[in-house]
Protein backbone atom coordinates (compact mmCIF):
# COMPACT_ATOMS: atom_id res chain seq x y z
CA UNK A 1 0.00 0.00 0.00
CA UNK A 2 2.91 2.33 0.66
CA UNK A 3 5.03 1.29 -2.26
CA UNK A 4 6.88 3.77 -4.38
CA UNK A 5 4.42 3.14 -7.18
CA UNK A 6 1.45 4.06 -5.02
CA UNK A 7 3.10 7.37 -4.18
CA UNK A 8 4.00 7.97 -7.82
CA UNK A 9 0.38 7.40 -8.67
CA UNK A 10 -0.71 9.83 -5.94
CA UNK A 11 1.82 12.52 -6.86
CA UNK A 12 0.74 12.32 -10.48
CA UNK A 13 -2.89 12.68 -9.49
CA UNK A 14 -2.03 15.63 -7.24
CA UNK A 15 0.11 17.32 -9.86
CA UNK A 16 -2.41 16.90 -12.62
CA UNK A 17 -5.37 18.08 -10.55
CA UNK A 18 -4.05 21.33 -9.19
CA UNK A 19 -7.40 22.97 -8.56
CA UNK A 20 -8.66 20.08 -6.49
CA UNK A 21 -5.40 19.86 -4.57
CA UNK A 22 -5.38 23.60 -4.02
CA UNK A 23 -8.95 23.65 -2.69
CA UNK A 24 -8.38 20.87 -0.21
CA UNK A 25 -5.00 22.16 0.85
CA UNK A 26 -6.16 25.73 1.13
CA UNK A 27 -9.08 24.81 3.38
CA UNK A 28 -6.88 22.89 5.75
CA UNK A 29 -4.05 25.42 5.74
CA UNK A 30 -6.44 28.28 6.35
CA UNK A 31 -8.24 26.42 9.12
CA UNK A 32 -5.02 25.67 10.95
CA UNK A 33 -3.66 29.15 10.30
CA UNK A 34 -6.73 30.79 11.83
CA UNK A 35 -6.78 28.35 14.70
CA UNK A 36 -3.13 28.95 15.54
CA UNK A 37 -3.55 32.72 15.22
CA UNK A 38 -6.64 32.83 17.42
CA UNK A 39 -5.16 30.68 20.14
CA UNK A 40 -1.92 32.66 19.89
CA UNK A 41 -3.68 36.01 20.17
CA UNK A 42 -5.70 34.82 23.13
CA UNK A 43 -2.48 33.71 24.80
CA UNK A 44 -1.00 37.11 24.00
CA UNK A 45 -3.94 38.73 25.75
CA UNK A 46 -3.38 36.47 28.74
CA UNK A 47 0.27 37.48 28.77
CA UNK A 48 -0.75 41.10 28.99
CA UNK A 49 -3.02 40.35 31.92
CA UNK A 50 -0.27 38.50 33.69
CA UNK A 51 2.10 41.35 33.05
CA UNK A 52 -0.37 43.87 34.45
CA UNK A 53 -1.45 42.01 37.51
CA UNK A 54 1.12 39.45 38.40
CA UNK A 55 4.18 41.67 38.63
CA UNK A 56 3.48 42.28 42.27
CA UNK A 57 2.76 39.77 44.99
CA UNK A 58 -0.86 38.64 44.97
CA UNK A 59 -1.30 37.87 48.67
CA UNK A 60 -1.32 41.52 49.59
CA UNK A 61 -3.68 44.08 51.19
CA UNK A 62 -3.16 47.80 50.75
CA UNK A 63 -4.61 49.83 53.63
CA UNK A 64 -5.40 53.52 53.03
CA UNK A 65 -6.76 55.84 55.69
CA UNK A 66 -9.80 57.88 54.70
CA UNK A 67 -12.08 60.57 56.05
CA UNK A 68 -15.01 59.45 58.18
CA UNK A 69 -18.54 60.11 56.96
CA UNK A 70 -20.41 59.24 60.17
CA UNK A 71 -20.15 60.48 63.71
CA UNK A 72 -19.18 57.73 66.13
CA UNK A 73 -18.46 57.50 69.86
CA UNK A 74 -18.37 61.23 70.33
CA UNK A 75 -16.28 61.93 67.24
CA UNK A 76 -17.74 64.08 64.54
CA UNK A 77 -17.87 62.92 60.97
CA UNK A 78 -15.45 64.17 58.33
CA UNK A 79 -12.47 63.37 60.51
CA UNK A 80 -9.22 62.39 58.77
CA UNK A 81 -8.00 58.99 59.90
CA UNK A 82 -4.25 58.53 60.17
CA UNK A 83 -2.06 55.50 60.51
CA UNK A 84 0.97 55.49 62.73
CA UNK A 85 3.66 53.08 63.83
CA UNK A 86 1.55 51.65 66.65
CA UNK A 87 -0.88 50.32 64.03
CA UNK A 88 1.89 48.20 62.52
CA UNK A 89 2.71 46.72 65.92
CA UNK A 90 -0.96 46.14 66.78
CA UNK A 91 -1.75 44.35 63.55
CA UNK A 92 1.35 42.21 64.00
CA UNK A 93 0.26 41.35 67.51
CA UNK A 94 -3.40 40.66 66.69
CA UNK A 95 -3.12 38.62 63.48
CA UNK A 96 0.08 36.57 63.74
CA UNK A 97 -1.73 33.52 62.33
CA UNK A 98 -2.54 35.33 59.08
CA UNK A 99 0.34 37.69 58.66
CA UNK A 100 3.34 37.03 56.48
CA UNK A 101 4.88 40.50 56.69
CA UNK A 102 3.78 44.08 57.11
CA UNK A 103 5.35 47.28 55.88
CA UNK A 104 4.37 50.92 55.76
CA UNK A 105 4.80 53.00 52.67
CA UNK A 106 5.24 56.76 52.63
CA UNK A 107 5.59 58.14 49.12
CA UNK A 108 7.12 61.52 48.47
CA UNK A 109 8.33 63.21 45.34
CA UNK A 110 11.85 64.54 45.66
CA UNK A 111 14.45 66.27 43.56
CA UNK A 112 17.42 63.93 43.63
CA UNK A 113 20.82 64.98 42.42
CA UNK A 114 24.28 63.62 42.04
CA UNK A 115 26.99 66.07 40.98
CA UNK A 116 25.53 67.86 37.93
CA UNK A 117 22.74 65.42 37.21
CA UNK A 118 19.41 65.81 38.91
CA UNK A 119 15.87 64.62 38.40
CA UNK A 120 12.55 64.23 40.16
CA UNK A 121 11.83 60.79 41.52
CA UNK A 122 9.34 59.16 43.83
CA UNK A 123 10.89 58.09 47.09
CA UNK A 124 9.14 55.37 48.98
CA UNK A 125 9.83 55.12 52.66
CA UNK A 126 9.27 51.45 53.51
CA UNK A 127 10.12 48.51 55.68
CA UNK A 128 12.07 45.38 54.64
CA UNK A 129 8.87 43.47 53.83
CA UNK A 130 8.22 45.81 50.93
CA UNK A 131 10.77 43.94 48.82
CA UNK A 132 8.50 40.86 48.70
CA UNK A 133 5.45 42.93 48.03
CA UNK A 134 6.90 44.54 44.90
CA UNK A 135 8.99 41.51 43.98
CA UNK A 136 11.96 43.84 43.82
CA UNK A 137 15.04 42.14 42.42
CA UNK A 138 18.40 43.33 43.75
CA UNK A 139 21.06 43.83 41.11
CA UNK A 140 23.72 45.24 43.39
CA UNK A 141 24.08 45.68 47.11
CA UNK A 142 21.18 45.00 49.44
CA UNK A 143 17.65 46.10 50.32
CA UNK A 144 16.59 48.13 53.37
CA UNK A 145 16.79 45.87 56.47
CA UNK A 146 15.61 45.95 60.08
CA UNK A 147 18.85 47.53 61.25
CA UNK A 148 18.25 50.46 58.89
CA UNK A 149 14.74 50.87 60.32
CA UNK A 150 16.01 50.78 63.90
CA UNK A 151 18.92 53.16 63.30
CA UNK A 152 17.05 55.46 60.91
CA UNK A 153 19.97 55.28 58.52
CA UNK A 154 20.21 57.60 55.55
CA UNK A 155 20.54 54.76 53.08
CA UNK A 156 18.83 54.59 49.72
CA UNK A 157 18.10 51.70 47.38
CA UNK A 158 17.72 53.12 43.87
CA UNK A 159 16.15 51.75 40.73
CA UNK A 160 18.17 50.68 37.76
CA UNK A 161 17.03 53.67 35.72
CA UNK A 162 17.80 56.10 38.54
CA UNK A 163 21.38 54.86 38.45
CA UNK A 164 21.41 55.19 34.70
CA UNK A 165 19.98 58.72 34.80
CA UNK A 166 22.21 60.09 37.50
CA UNK A 167 25.39 58.09 37.20
CA UNK A 168 25.46 57.19 33.53
CA UNK A 169 27.75 54.22 33.15
CA UNK A 170 29.36 54.69 36.54
CA UNK A 171 28.63 52.59 39.58
CA UNK A 172 26.30 54.27 42.06
CA UNK A 173 27.14 51.94 44.94
CA UNK A 174 28.50 53.78 47.97
CA UNK A 175 27.98 57.22 46.43
CA UNK A 176 25.97 59.89 48.17
CA UNK A 177 22.99 61.47 46.47
CA UNK A 178 21.20 64.60 47.58
CA UNK A 179 17.54 63.95 48.19
CA UNK A 180 15.47 67.04 49.04
CA UNK A 181 18.34 68.51 50.99
CA UNK A 182 19.59 65.38 52.78
CA UNK A 183 22.47 63.18 51.64
CA UNK A 184 21.69 59.49 51.26
CA UNK A 185 24.19 56.73 50.66
CA UNK A 186 23.30 54.35 47.85
CA UNK A 187 23.45 50.82 49.28
CA UNK A 188 21.65 48.94 46.55
CA UNK A 189 20.39 49.04 42.96
CA UNK A 190 17.31 47.07 41.96
CA UNK A 191 15.33 46.09 38.94
CA UNK A 192 11.64 45.41 38.66
CA UNK A 193 9.50 43.66 36.05
CA UNK A 194 6.80 46.28 36.54
CA UNK A 195 8.28 48.55 33.89
CA UNK A 196 10.25 51.78 33.64
CA UNK A 197 8.22 53.64 36.23
CA UNK A 198 8.96 51.07 38.90
CA UNK A 199 12.63 51.29 38.12
CA UNK A 200 12.65 55.05 38.74
CA UNK A 201 11.68 54.62 42.40
CA UNK A 202 13.97 55.11 45.37
CA UNK A 203 13.50 53.18 48.59
CA UNK A 204 14.54 54.54 51.99
CA UNK A 205 13.79 53.35 55.56
CA UNK A 206 10.39 54.65 56.72
CA UNK A 207 11.81 55.66 60.08
CA UNK A 208 14.31 57.89 58.32
CA UNK A 209 11.48 59.58 56.45
CA UNK A 210 9.60 60.10 59.69
CA UNK A 211 12.75 61.57 61.26
CA UNK A 212 13.15 64.02 58.42
CA UNK A 213 9.49 65.00 58.70
CA UNK A 214 9.81 66.41 62.19
CA UNK A 215 10.29 63.02 63.83
CA UNK A 216 6.61 62.03 63.65
CA UNK A 217 5.31 58.46 63.46
CA UNK A 218 2.75 58.90 60.70
CA UNK A 219 2.27 56.39 57.95
CA UNK A 220 0.53 57.01 54.57
CA UNK A 221 -0.45 53.47 53.86
CA UNK A 222 0.12 50.04 55.22
CA UNK A 223 0.91 47.12 53.01
CA UNK A 224 0.63 43.66 54.45
CA UNK A 225 0.79 40.17 53.10
CA UNK A 226 -1.12 37.19 54.37
CA UNK A 227 0.18 33.65 54.37
CA UNK A 228 -0.56 32.02 51.02
CA UNK A 229 -1.79 28.86 52.72
CA UNK A 230 -4.92 30.55 54.12
CA UNK A 231 -6.21 30.64 50.55
CA UNK A 232 -8.75 32.89 48.91
CA UNK A 233 -11.50 32.29 51.51
CA UNK A 234 -9.05 32.85 54.34
CA UNK A 235 -7.92 36.08 52.76
CA UNK A 236 -11.50 37.28 52.55
CA UNK A 237 -12.10 36.42 56.21
CA UNK A 238 -8.85 38.12 57.18
CA UNK A 239 -9.93 41.26 55.34
CA UNK A 240 -13.20 41.37 57.28
CA UNK A 241 -11.54 40.97 60.69
CA UNK A 242 -8.79 43.42 59.81
CA UNK A 243 -11.30 46.04 58.74
CA UNK A 244 -13.26 45.55 61.95
CA UNK A 245 -10.13 45.73 64.09
CA UNK A 246 -8.82 48.97 62.59
CA UNK A 247 -12.22 50.64 62.55
CA UNK A 248 -12.59 49.85 66.22
CA UNK A 249 -9.13 51.12 67.03
CA UNK A 250 -9.62 54.34 65.06
CA UNK A 251 -13.19 54.89 66.29
CA UNK A 252 -14.77 54.60 62.90
CA UNK A 253 -18.43 53.64 62.74
CA UNK A 254 -18.72 49.96 61.67
CA UNK A 255 -20.98 51.00 58.77
CA UNK A 256 -18.77 53.89 57.67
CA UNK A 257 -17.37 53.01 54.26
CA UNK A 258 -15.08 56.02 54.04
CA UNK A 259 -12.90 55.83 57.14
CA UNK A 260 -10.71 53.05 55.85
CA UNK A 261 -9.99 51.56 52.47
CA UNK A 262 -8.53 48.14 51.90
CA UNK A 263 -7.40 47.08 48.47
CA UNK A 264 -7.39 43.33 48.38
CA UNK A 265 -5.10 42.20 45.54
CA UNK A 266 -6.27 38.61 45.85
CA UNK A 267 -9.85 39.70 45.22
CA UNK A 268 -8.86 41.91 42.32
CA UNK A 269 -6.72 39.20 40.86
CA UNK A 270 -9.58 36.78 41.09
CA UNK A 271 -11.78 39.18 39.12
CA UNK A 272 -9.11 39.91 36.57
CA UNK A 273 -8.38 36.25 36.12
CA UNK A 274 -12.06 35.63 35.60
CA UNK A 275 -12.13 38.34 32.96
CA UNK A 276 -9.06 36.93 31.26
CA UNK A 277 -10.60 33.47 31.38
CA UNK A 278 -13.83 34.70 29.81
CA UNK A 279 -11.87 36.26 26.98
CA UNK A 280 -9.80 33.10 26.59
CA UNK A 281 -13.02 31.11 26.51
CA UNK A 282 -14.49 33.32 23.78
CA UNK A 283 -11.30 32.84 21.79
CA UNK A 284 -11.42 29.09 22.39
CA UNK A 285 -14.98 28.94 21.10
CA UNK A 286 -13.90 30.79 17.96
CA UNK A 287 -10.86 28.55 17.59
CA UNK A 288 -12.98 25.45 18.01
CA UNK A 289 -15.45 26.87 15.51
CA UNK A 290 -12.61 27.37 13.05
CA UNK A 291 -11.51 23.77 13.43
CA UNK A 292 -15.07 22.54 12.96
CA UNK A 293 -15.45 24.77 9.92
CA UNK A 294 -12.17 23.34 8.64
CA UNK A 295 -13.40 19.80 9.16
CA UNK A 296 -16.67 20.55 7.39
CA UNK A 297 -14.74 22.25 4.61
CA UNK A 298 -12.39 19.35 4.07
CA UNK A 299 -15.31 16.90 4.24
CA UNK A 300 -17.16 18.82 1.56
CA UNK A 301 -14.12 18.90 -0.64
CA UNK A 302 -13.52 15.18 -0.18
CA UNK A 303 -17.12 14.46 -1.19
CA UNK A 304 -16.62 16.70 -4.21
CA UNK A 305 -13.29 15.08 -5.05
CA UNK A 306 -14.71 11.58 -4.91
CA UNK A 307 -17.75 12.64 -6.92
CA UNK A 308 -15.50 14.21 -9.51
CA UNK A 309 -13.40 11.08 -9.68
CA UNK A 310 -16.30 8.62 -9.87
CA UNK A 311 -15.75 7.98 -13.54
CA UNK A 312 -12.01 7.66 -13.18
CA UNK A 313 -12.52 5.22 -10.34
CA UNK A 314 -14.93 3.27 -12.53
CA UNK A 315 -12.27 3.05 -15.23
CA UNK A 316 -9.69 1.96 -12.69
CA UNK A 317 -12.04 -0.70 -11.36
CA UNK A 318 -12.75 -1.98 -14.85
CA UNK A 319 -8.99 -2.25 -15.34
CA UNK A 320 -8.60 -4.29 -12.19
CA UNK A 321 -8.38 -1.88 -9.25
CA UNK A 322 -9.62 -3.58 -6.10
CA UNK A 323 -11.93 -1.65 -3.73
CA UNK A 324 -9.08 -1.60 -1.27
CA UNK A 325 -6.72 0.08 -3.66
CA UNK A 326 -9.41 2.59 -4.64
CA UNK A 327 -10.00 3.57 -1.02
CA UNK A 328 -6.29 3.50 -0.30
CA UNK A 329 -5.45 5.83 -3.15
CA UNK A 330 -8.10 8.37 -2.22
CA UNK A 331 -7.26 8.27 1.47
CA UNK A 332 -3.51 8.46 1.02
CA UNK A 333 -3.96 11.36 -1.34
CA UNK A 334 -6.22 13.24 1.06
CA UNK A 335 -4.04 12.51 4.08
CA UNK A 336 -0.97 13.57 2.14
CA UNK A 337 -2.53 16.86 1.08
CA UNK A 338 -3.97 17.65 4.50
CA UNK A 339 -0.74 16.75 6.24
CA UNK A 340 1.41 18.93 4.04
CA UNK A 341 -0.99 21.87 3.97
CA UNK A 342 -1.85 21.47 7.65
CA UNK A 343 1.83 21.63 8.43
CA UNK A 344 2.27 24.66 6.19
CA UNK A 345 -0.72 26.36 7.81
CA UNK A 346 0.70 25.63 11.24
CA UNK A 347 4.12 27.00 10.32
CA UNK A 348 2.53 30.09 8.79
CA UNK A 349 0.48 30.61 11.93
CA UNK A 350 3.46 30.20 14.23
CA UNK A 351 5.51 32.47 12.00
CA UNK A 352 2.72 35.06 12.05
CA UNK A 353 2.58 34.95 15.84
CA UNK A 354 6.36 35.27 16.04
CA UNK A 355 6.39 38.23 13.73
CA UNK A 356 3.64 39.93 15.74
CA UNK A 357 5.75 39.70 18.90
CA UNK A 358 5.32 43.01 20.70
CA UNK A 359 3.82 44.93 17.80
CA UNK A 360 0.26 44.65 19.08
CA UNK A 361 1.08 45.62 22.64
CA UNK A 362 -1.10 48.70 22.24
CA UNK A 363 -4.02 46.33 21.74
CA UNK A 364 -3.14 44.40 24.87
CA UNK A 365 -1.63 41.51 22.97
CA UNK A 366 1.87 40.62 24.02
CA UNK A 367 4.13 37.85 22.77
CA UNK A 368 1.33 35.73 21.32
CA UNK A 369 2.28 32.08 21.21
CA UNK A 370 0.70 28.69 20.81
CA UNK A 371 1.58 25.57 22.65
CA UNK A 372 3.32 23.36 20.08
CA UNK A 373 1.42 20.32 21.34
CA UNK A 374 -1.92 22.05 20.82
CA UNK A 375 -0.99 23.22 17.33
CA UNK A 376 0.08 19.72 16.35
CA UNK A 377 -3.01 18.23 17.96
CA UNK A 378 -5.28 20.54 15.96
CA UNK A 379 -3.42 19.70 12.76
CA UNK A 380 -3.67 15.98 13.43
CA UNK A 381 -7.34 16.38 14.28
CA UNK A 382 -7.97 17.99 10.91
CA UNK A 383 -5.95 15.31 9.12
CA UNK A 384 -7.84 12.52 10.87
CA UNK A 385 -11.20 14.10 10.13
CA UNK A 386 -10.11 14.82 6.58
CA UNK A 387 -9.28 11.14 6.20
CA UNK A 388 -12.53 10.06 7.85
CA UNK A 389 -14.46 12.47 5.69
CA UNK A 390 -12.69 11.07 2.67
CA UNK A 391 -13.21 7.48 3.74
CA UNK A 392 -17.00 7.53 3.66
CA UNK A 393 -17.36 8.71 0.05
CA UNK A 394 -14.30 6.68 -0.97
CA UNK A 395 -15.88 3.51 0.36
CA UNK A 396 -19.08 4.34 -1.43
CA UNK A 397 -17.16 4.97 -4.64
CA UNK A 398 -15.34 1.67 -4.21
CA UNK A 399 -18.68 -0.10 -3.84
CA UNK A 400 -20.33 1.45 -6.87
CA UNK A 401 -20.50 -1.07 -9.65
CA UNK A 402 -17.97 -0.06 -12.26
CA UNK A 403 -20.71 -0.01 -14.85
CA UNK A 404 -22.59 2.66 -12.91
CA UNK A 405 -19.44 4.67 -12.38
CA UNK A 406 -18.61 4.48 -16.06
CA UNK A 407 -22.03 5.75 -17.04
CA UNK A 408 -21.56 8.73 -14.74
CA UNK A 409 -20.83 11.87 -16.66
Amino acid sequence: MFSRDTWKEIFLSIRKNKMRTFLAGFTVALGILIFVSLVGLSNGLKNTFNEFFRDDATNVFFLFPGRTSMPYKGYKSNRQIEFDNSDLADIKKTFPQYLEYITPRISRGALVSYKDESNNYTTRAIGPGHQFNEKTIMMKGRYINEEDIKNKTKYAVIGRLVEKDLFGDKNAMGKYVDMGGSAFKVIGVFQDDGGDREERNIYIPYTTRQLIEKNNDEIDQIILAFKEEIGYAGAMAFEVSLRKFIKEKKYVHPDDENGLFIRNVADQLQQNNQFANVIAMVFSVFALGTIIAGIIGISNIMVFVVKERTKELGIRKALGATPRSVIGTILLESVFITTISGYVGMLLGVFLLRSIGDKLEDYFIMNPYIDTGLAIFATILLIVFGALAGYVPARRAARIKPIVALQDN
Partner: protein
Amino acid sequence: MIEIKDLHKSYQMGSNSLHVLKGLNFKVSEGELVAIMGSSGSGKSTLLNILGMLDVADDGEYILDGVTIKNMNETKAAQYRNKFLGFIFQSFNLINYKTALENVALPLYYQGMGRKARQEKALKYLEQVGLKEWSHHLPNELSGGQKQRVAIARAMVTEPKVLLADELTGALDSKTSYEVMDLLQTINDLGNTILVVTHEEDIAHMCKRIVHLRDGIIVKDEKIKQVRASEYVQ
Protein backbone atom coordinates in the same frame (compact mmCIF):
# COMPACT_ATOMS: atom_id res chain seq x y z
CA MET B 1 -13.87 -19.79 -23.52
CA ILE B 2 -17.17 -18.18 -22.61
CA GLU B 3 -20.31 -20.09 -21.77
CA ILE B 4 -23.58 -18.71 -20.48
CA LYS B 5 -26.61 -20.70 -19.51
CA ASP B 6 -30.09 -19.30 -18.97
CA LEU B 7 -28.91 -15.83 -18.06
CA HIS B 8 -31.48 -13.45 -16.53
CA LYS B 9 -31.19 -9.83 -15.58
CA SER B 10 -33.79 -7.30 -14.43
CA TYR B 11 -33.49 -3.69 -13.51
CA GLN B 12 -35.61 -2.16 -10.83
CA MET B 13 -37.14 1.08 -12.13
CA GLY B 14 -38.99 2.47 -9.17
CA SER B 15 -41.87 0.08 -8.60
CA ASN B 16 -41.54 -1.48 -12.05
CA SER B 17 -39.15 -4.27 -12.85
CA LEU B 18 -37.58 -4.19 -16.29
CA HIS B 19 -36.67 -7.65 -17.49
CA VAL B 20 -33.70 -7.01 -19.77
CA LEU B 21 -32.18 -10.44 -20.33
CA LYS B 22 -34.65 -13.30 -20.54
CA GLY B 23 -32.68 -16.48 -20.44
CA LEU B 24 -29.70 -16.33 -22.77
CA ASN B 25 -27.63 -19.32 -23.80
CA PHE B 26 -24.51 -19.24 -25.91
CA LYS B 27 -20.89 -20.24 -26.15
CA VAL B 28 -17.87 -18.51 -27.52
CA SER B 29 -14.77 -20.54 -28.29
CA GLU B 30 -11.21 -19.33 -28.33
CA GLY B 31 -10.19 -17.17 -31.29
CA GLU B 32 -13.71 -16.13 -32.24
CA LEU B 33 -14.68 -12.61 -33.25
CA VAL B 34 -18.32 -12.26 -32.29
CA ALA B 35 -20.63 -9.32 -32.88
CA ILE B 36 -23.60 -8.90 -30.57
CA MET B 37 -26.19 -6.94 -32.49
CA GLY B 38 -29.46 -5.42 -31.58
CA SER B 39 -31.32 -2.16 -31.40
CA SER B 40 -31.04 -0.02 -28.34
CA GLY B 41 -32.86 -1.62 -25.41
CA SER B 42 -32.27 -5.12 -26.72
CA GLY B 43 -30.02 -5.89 -23.77
CA LYS B 44 -26.75 -6.16 -25.64
CA SER B 45 -24.78 -3.78 -23.43
CA THR B 46 -26.19 -5.42 -20.31
CA LEU B 47 -24.99 -8.76 -21.61
CA LEU B 48 -21.54 -7.37 -22.29
CA ASN B 49 -21.34 -5.81 -18.82
CA ILE B 50 -22.23 -9.12 -17.23
CA LEU B 51 -19.67 -10.89 -19.36
CA GLY B 52 -17.18 -8.23 -18.30
CA MET B 53 -18.05 -8.67 -14.61
CA LEU B 54 -18.92 -5.01 -14.48
CA ASP B 55 -22.42 -6.08 -13.57
CA VAL B 56 -23.92 -9.25 -12.13
CA ALA B 57 -26.71 -11.46 -13.45
CA ASP B 58 -29.76 -12.24 -11.36
CA ASP B 59 -29.93 -15.82 -12.46
CA GLY B 60 -28.14 -18.29 -14.66
CA GLU B 61 -24.62 -19.48 -15.10
CA TYR B 62 -21.55 -17.77 -16.48
CA ILE B 63 -18.39 -19.72 -17.04
CA LEU B 64 -15.27 -17.87 -18.14
CA ASP B 65 -12.28 -19.98 -19.14
CA GLY B 66 -13.55 -22.85 -17.04
CA VAL B 67 -14.25 -20.73 -13.97
CA THR B 68 -17.82 -20.23 -12.80
CA ILE B 69 -18.36 -16.56 -12.09
CA LYS B 70 -20.72 -16.39 -9.18
CA ASN B 71 -21.08 -14.56 -5.89
CA MET B 72 -17.78 -12.96 -6.47
CA ASN B 73 -16.77 -10.15 -4.16
CA GLU B 74 -15.50 -6.91 -5.63
CA THR B 75 -11.86 -7.64 -4.90
CA LYS B 76 -12.00 -11.03 -6.60
CA ALA B 77 -13.96 -9.58 -9.51
CA ALA B 78 -11.37 -6.84 -9.90
CA GLN B 79 -8.59 -9.40 -10.05
CA TYR B 80 -10.48 -11.47 -12.64
CA ARG B 81 -11.22 -8.44 -14.76
CA ASN B 82 -7.59 -7.54 -14.67
CA LYS B 83 -6.37 -11.02 -15.53
CA PHE B 84 -8.97 -12.33 -17.97
CA LEU B 85 -10.66 -9.36 -19.59
CA GLY B 86 -9.84 -6.31 -21.63
CA PHE B 87 -12.35 -3.53 -22.12
CA ILE B 88 -12.83 -1.15 -25.00
CA PHE B 89 -15.53 1.48 -24.50
CA GLN B 90 -17.44 3.72 -26.84
CA SER B 91 -16.26 6.79 -24.93
CA PHE B 92 -12.68 5.45 -24.72
CA ASN B 93 -12.58 5.98 -20.93
CA LEU B 94 -8.98 7.02 -20.85
CA ILE B 95 -7.82 8.82 -17.72
CA ASN B 96 -7.41 12.33 -18.98
CA TYR B 97 -4.51 13.41 -16.82
CA LYS B 98 -2.36 10.44 -17.75
CA THR B 99 -0.33 10.14 -20.93
CA ALA B 100 -1.11 7.46 -23.50
CA LEU B 101 1.72 5.35 -22.12
CA GLU B 102 0.56 5.71 -18.52
CA ASN B 103 -2.98 4.82 -19.52
CA VAL B 104 -1.82 1.66 -21.23
CA ALA B 105 0.41 0.76 -18.29
CA LEU B 106 -2.33 1.21 -15.69
CA PRO B 107 -3.75 -2.35 -15.74
CA LEU B 108 -0.22 -3.66 -15.24
CA TYR B 109 0.11 -1.41 -12.19
CA TYR B 110 -2.84 -3.22 -10.69
CA GLN B 111 -1.11 -6.49 -11.42
CA GLY B 112 1.74 -5.28 -9.28
CA MET B 113 4.24 -5.19 -12.12
CA GLY B 114 7.34 -3.05 -11.66
CA ARG B 115 7.47 0.39 -13.18
CA LYS B 116 10.10 -0.31 -15.78
CA ALA B 117 8.63 -3.58 -16.98
CA ARG B 118 5.25 -1.89 -17.12
CA GLN B 119 6.42 0.91 -19.34
CA GLU B 120 8.33 -1.39 -21.66
CA LYS B 121 5.34 -3.63 -22.13
CA ALA B 122 2.97 -0.69 -22.55
CA LEU B 123 5.25 0.82 -25.18
CA LYS B 124 5.33 -2.49 -27.04
CA TYR B 125 1.54 -2.51 -27.25
CA LEU B 126 1.37 1.15 -28.20
CA GLU B 127 3.75 0.32 -31.02
CA GLN B 128 1.46 -2.50 -32.07
CA VAL B 129 -1.45 -0.07 -32.47
CA GLY B 130 0.87 2.35 -34.29
CA LEU B 131 1.07 5.05 -31.62
CA LYS B 132 4.61 4.71 -30.34
CA GLU B 133 5.40 8.32 -31.21
CA TRP B 134 2.33 9.50 -29.30
CA SER B 135 3.17 7.72 -26.09
CA HIS B 136 3.78 10.90 -24.09
CA HIS B 137 0.71 12.75 -25.27
CA LEU B 138 -2.34 13.28 -23.13
CA PRO B 139 -5.67 11.91 -24.39
CA ASN B 140 -6.97 15.39 -25.26
CA GLU B 141 -4.05 15.79 -27.66
CA LEU B 142 -5.13 12.71 -29.60
CA SER B 143 -7.83 12.22 -32.24
CA GLY B 144 -10.80 9.95 -31.60
CA GLY B 145 -9.29 7.10 -33.57
CA GLN B 146 -6.00 7.47 -31.76
CA LYS B 147 -7.76 7.48 -28.40
CA GLN B 148 -9.59 4.28 -29.27
CA ARG B 149 -6.33 2.69 -30.33
CA VAL B 150 -4.78 3.66 -27.00
CA ALA B 151 -7.80 2.06 -25.34
CA ILE B 152 -7.28 -1.10 -27.42
CA ALA B 153 -3.61 -1.18 -26.43
CA ARG B 154 -4.66 -0.80 -22.81
CA ALA B 155 -7.17 -3.65 -23.16
CA MET B 156 -4.51 -5.82 -24.78
CA VAL B 157 -1.63 -5.10 -22.46
CA THR B 158 -2.58 -7.69 -19.82
CA GLU B 159 -2.91 -10.36 -22.56
CA PRO B 160 -6.49 -11.11 -21.54
CA LYS B 161 -8.46 -14.19 -22.53
CA VAL B 162 -11.26 -12.09 -23.96
CA LEU B 163 -11.53 -8.56 -25.32
CA LEU B 164 -14.89 -6.90 -24.78
CA ALA B 165 -15.73 -3.93 -26.99
CA ASP B 166 -18.84 -1.85 -26.34
CA GLU B 167 -19.80 0.18 -29.42
CA LEU B 168 -16.14 0.84 -29.94
CA THR B 169 -16.78 2.72 -33.19
CA GLY B 170 -19.79 4.62 -31.88
CA ALA B 171 -17.90 7.87 -31.45
CA LEU B 172 -15.84 7.60 -34.65
CA ASP B 173 -16.44 8.50 -38.29
CA SER B 174 -16.65 5.58 -40.71
CA LYS B 175 -13.11 5.88 -42.06
CA THR B 176 -11.66 5.82 -38.56
CA SER B 177 -14.11 3.07 -37.61
CA TYR B 178 -12.74 0.85 -40.37
CA GLU B 179 -9.19 1.56 -39.31
CA VAL B 180 -10.03 0.54 -35.76
CA MET B 181 -11.86 -2.57 -37.00
CA ASP B 182 -8.85 -3.40 -39.15
CA LEU B 183 -6.73 -3.29 -36.02
CA LEU B 184 -9.25 -5.47 -34.16
CA GLN B 185 -9.22 -8.03 -36.99
CA THR B 186 -5.43 -8.13 -36.91
CA ILE B 187 -5.55 -8.78 -33.18
CA ASN B 188 -8.14 -11.49 -33.74
CA ASP B 189 -5.94 -13.04 -36.40
CA LEU B 190 -3.30 -13.48 -33.70
CA GLY B 191 -5.76 -15.75 -31.89
CA ASN B 192 -7.45 -13.40 -29.43
CA THR B 193 -11.11 -13.91 -28.57
CA ILE B 194 -13.10 -10.73 -29.11
CA LEU B 195 -16.72 -9.79 -28.41
CA VAL B 196 -18.06 -6.64 -30.06
CA VAL B 197 -21.34 -5.02 -29.17
CA THR B 198 -22.65 -2.87 -32.00
CA HIS B 199 -25.78 -1.74 -33.73
CA GLU B 200 -23.99 -0.97 -36.99
CA GLU B 201 -24.46 -3.57 -39.74
CA ASP B 202 -21.15 -2.92 -41.48
CA ILE B 203 -19.18 -3.24 -38.27
CA ALA B 204 -21.02 -6.45 -37.37
CA HIS B 205 -20.17 -7.94 -40.76
CA MET B 206 -16.49 -7.41 -40.13
CA CYS B 207 -16.80 -10.05 -37.39
CA LYS B 208 -16.97 -13.80 -37.95
CA ARG B 209 -20.24 -14.46 -36.17
CA ILE B 210 -23.26 -12.33 -35.35
CA VAL B 211 -25.54 -12.89 -32.38
CA HIS B 212 -28.82 -11.01 -32.87
CA LEU B 213 -30.51 -9.88 -29.69
CA ARG B 214 -34.04 -8.59 -29.45
CA ASP B 215 -35.94 -7.77 -26.28
CA GLY B 216 -33.62 -9.85 -24.19
CA ILE B 217 -33.66 -13.00 -26.25
CA ILE B 218 -31.23 -14.32 -28.87
CA VAL B 219 -33.24 -14.37 -32.07
CA LYS B 220 -30.48 -15.41 -34.44
CA ASP B 221 -26.94 -16.71 -34.03
CA GLU B 222 -25.11 -17.11 -37.34
CA LYS B 223 -21.62 -17.60 -38.66
CA ILE B 224 -20.91 -15.13 -41.47
CA LYS B 225 -18.31 -14.48 -44.09
CA GLN B 226 -16.00 -11.88 -42.66
CA VAL B 227 -15.58 -8.58 -44.48
CA ARG B 228 -11.99 -7.45 -44.13
CA ALA B 229 -11.82 -3.85 -42.99
CA SER B 230 -8.52 -3.45 -44.85
CA GLU B 231 -10.54 -3.36 -48.07
CA TYR B 232 -11.87 0.00 -47.00
CA VAL B 233 -8.62 1.33 -45.65
CA GLN B 234 -6.14 2.90 -48.00
